[in-house]
């Protein structure tokens, strides 16, 4: 595998992509805070949102250092989160989709947690110390996210007829967004083809196992929604950013 030059712009794009996935997912999860179906689950999902915001900060801080080293810019974790527009965001569409009900939220969380888990497992061996360290720290958190969300998929899939129907509907609603996770953008070339295959295979294996225990089926539809990784988003991201960035935009240059 080729070793990245520190100021490689593809590598910076990749860090932003990782950070954006974590930040937007955290945003969606944080919308549940105070509104969960039980206090324990409210706490659990907020925990995940907190981990994700921590991961986003690590990726952004690292990206900011690299950007500033290679240009006259003065980026920070906050300028990257709060002052870029939708077309600059490189998150997968899956993470920006609305929460829907608890079932859809859980399903999205499971699909993305499984992806991040296997991805970070690989990234912790990558030849960039800093990224490998962030991945190694994150994979411990992902271990919990994956276990928690998989448990809930099994509970809801194999619960009551209503919960099964809701999970089936949720799968129908989001499945077409899962393909994008594995459509490799140019800036992802830090991952070898071998790694990419490994991640994809581990992911699909995990989904099959958990769906099996949950008595849920993987849909046949092959239609693929794509665009997020390249900055072409759903209508939802604009609203997320409008809300998230409001204060930074309304009172530019302030300390908070």
């Amino acid at each position: 595998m080729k070793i990245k030059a520190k100021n490689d712009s593809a590598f910076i794009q990749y860090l932003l992509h990782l950070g954006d996935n974590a930040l937007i997912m955290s945003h969606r999860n944080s919308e549940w805070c105070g509104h969960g179906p039980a206090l324990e689950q409210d706490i659990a999902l907020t925990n995940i949102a907190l981990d994700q915001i921590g991961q986003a900060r690590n990726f952004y801080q690292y990206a900011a250092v690299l950007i500033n080293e290679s240009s006259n810019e003065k980026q920070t974790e906050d300028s990257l989160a709060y002052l870029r527009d939708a077309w600059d965001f490189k998150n997968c569409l899956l993470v920006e989709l609305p929460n829907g009900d608890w079932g859809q939220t859980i399903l999205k969380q499971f699909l993305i947690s499984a992806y991040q888990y296997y991805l970070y497992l690989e990234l912790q061996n990558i030849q960039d110390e800093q990224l490998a360290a962030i991945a190694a720290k994150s994979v411990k958190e992902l271990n919990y996210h994956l276990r928690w969300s998989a448990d809930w998929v099994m509970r809801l899939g194999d619960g009551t007829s209503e919960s099964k129907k809701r999970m089936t509907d949720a799968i129908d609603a989001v499945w077409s967004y899962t393909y994008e996770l594995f459509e490799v953008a140019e800036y992802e070339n830090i991952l070898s083809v071998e790694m990419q295959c490994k991640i994809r295979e581990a992911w699909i294996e995990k989904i099959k196992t958990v769906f099996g225990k949950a008595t849920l089926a993987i849909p046949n539809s092959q239609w693929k929604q794509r665009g997020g990784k390249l900055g072409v988003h759903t209508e939802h991201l604009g609203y997320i950013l409008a809300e998230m960035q409001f204060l930074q935009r309304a009172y530019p240059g302030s300390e908070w």
Partner: protein
Amino acid sequence: MQISLEEQFQQKIDQEIKIEPKDWMPEKYRHTLIRQISQHAHSEVVGMLPEGNWITRAPSLKRKAILLAKVQDEAGHGLYLYSAAETLGISRDEMYEQLHSGRAKYSSIFNYPTLNWADIGAIGWLVDGAAIMNQVPLCRTSFGPYARAMVRVCKEESFHQRQGFECLWVLSKGTEEQKKMCQDAINRWWWPCLMMFGPKDDESPNTMQNMQWKIKRFTNDALRQKFVDMIAEQIKLLGMKLPDPDLKWNEATAHYDYGKINWDEFWQVVQGNGPCNKERLAARKNAWDEGAWVREAATAHAEKNQIKISSMLHPNDINLGS
């Protein structure tokens, strides 16, 4: 010489021996505690709403993480307190039912809106600050499970107050607009915070009994005064003003004098007419109703698994160890 259960009970309290769930206790003590602890638990949970309102709009990633952690702590406080109340023979579902039907109250402070970002700081500094005044003495309350829950709660509350003050401190050193946010939030939260200590002592009929049972350690007015004295000093660091023209240091009493509290507003909010009573209760009810299918599914799944496990454990299969 025989002494009555009632007298034994009071003797224990006088000797600072904790009352535990299985101990004999007067019915009125039990009921008062269920009311107090569940009301406290509801306050923690309803209190997540006004602050949760700003999580998605927090102005930096650091503030967002702090706020998320803080609101999550409040959920945890709710859990400890519901568990403490359950030891007195009431279920969490029953307590929720009382909250949703309006029979149980929660702290009126959470019926006020969070209108600008500085409200998050003001809640931490003033609301959590007032809560600490009320809660520190509760760490020594006579009922064991409540006292122990409060020890854990109080540890986290001091972090809440510090982050709130620090949030305002940054704003107070910031731009003109940020200073304006800061003062605006203080103006709106100050009086409702003074009301958090409850009615004046001479209008608080249960105070005597509750002090004797050591459910209450200080009177409402004493705690309120302590709070005023603390905040009147701390606000100087922010360079802001408390919205009370009568606030001034009194040499003779060695306390701050303060103006008249609008008790009419207090009772109106208690009775459901505050700016956000309807929204807060609706949000809680909605979360509960929307979560019904989830809880049912979890129960159904657990029961199915129970059956699976017990059918797997056929007596012949159990290895009793060698």
